[in-house]
């Protein structure tokens, strides 16, 4: 299955893209730092970009490269806004722990307790 032509063809690029996406998923699902969660989303972004560029190259359509350019530009804006949000969250809570982010849930419980009283 994996032979000489595999490494010349397009499947090896999909494999690399899946490794990148998987490393993003690993960071996103296992680390409890909010900053790393945003970084992980960016990694997934890049894996998908690689797939677009691969299709663009092998099937002779330039649109894929254009999509990569535009999505990288949008990624810049989204990453900047995400980091600003994280910074403001840190300033409020003095922590970046995802497991400590339970404000919404606690407020509902408080409301119930108030209603019962």
């Amino acid at each position, binding site marked *: 299955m994996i032979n000489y032509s595999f490494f010349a063809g397009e499947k090896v690029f999909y494999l690399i893209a899946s490794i990148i996406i998987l490393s993003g998923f690993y960071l996103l699902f296992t680390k409890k730092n909010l900053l790393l969660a945003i970084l992980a989303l960016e990694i997934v972004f890049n894996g998908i970009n690689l797939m677009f560029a691969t299709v663009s190259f092998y099937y002779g359509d330039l649109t894929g490269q254009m999509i990569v*350019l535009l999505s990288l*530009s949008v990624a*810049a*804006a989204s990453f*900047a806004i995400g980091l600003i949000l994280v*910074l403001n969250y840190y300033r409020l809570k003095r922590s970046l722990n995802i497991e400590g982010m339970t404000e919404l849930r606690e407020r509902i419980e408080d409301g119930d307790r108030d209603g019962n009283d």
Partner: protein
Amino acid sequence: MVRPDEYVPTNYLSVLIMVIVGFIFGLGGLIFGSFVRPRFYYKEKLVPYECGNEPSGLPWQKIAIRYYPIAILFAVFDVELGLIYPWTVGFSGLTSTGFLVMIGFLLVLLLGLVYDLKKGILDWHRR
């Protein structure tokens, strides 16, 4: 024209070799130096410099937030630069729409910069 599964960017071989040579140049100097340089370490020598005093705590404390807007502004304008470059190279093939859209792009971003500067993002002193 070559087939896609035979394409190799041969021009960049020399850049690759240059990277390797540059890295080996620095690393080789370090390794060569490690044979001749003296090693007399004691605690006072390894303490970070702080005008001769005992260092007070770790350096990684809270630092002013004023540097952070510079990083974000830089990222935004770097994206702008990255989108300008293909426009400059393909200039003679552009239609008038293609010409005007980049002028509009630049003006919108300039408007954003003017907004930030008016709001005092880079004013180091408090108003």
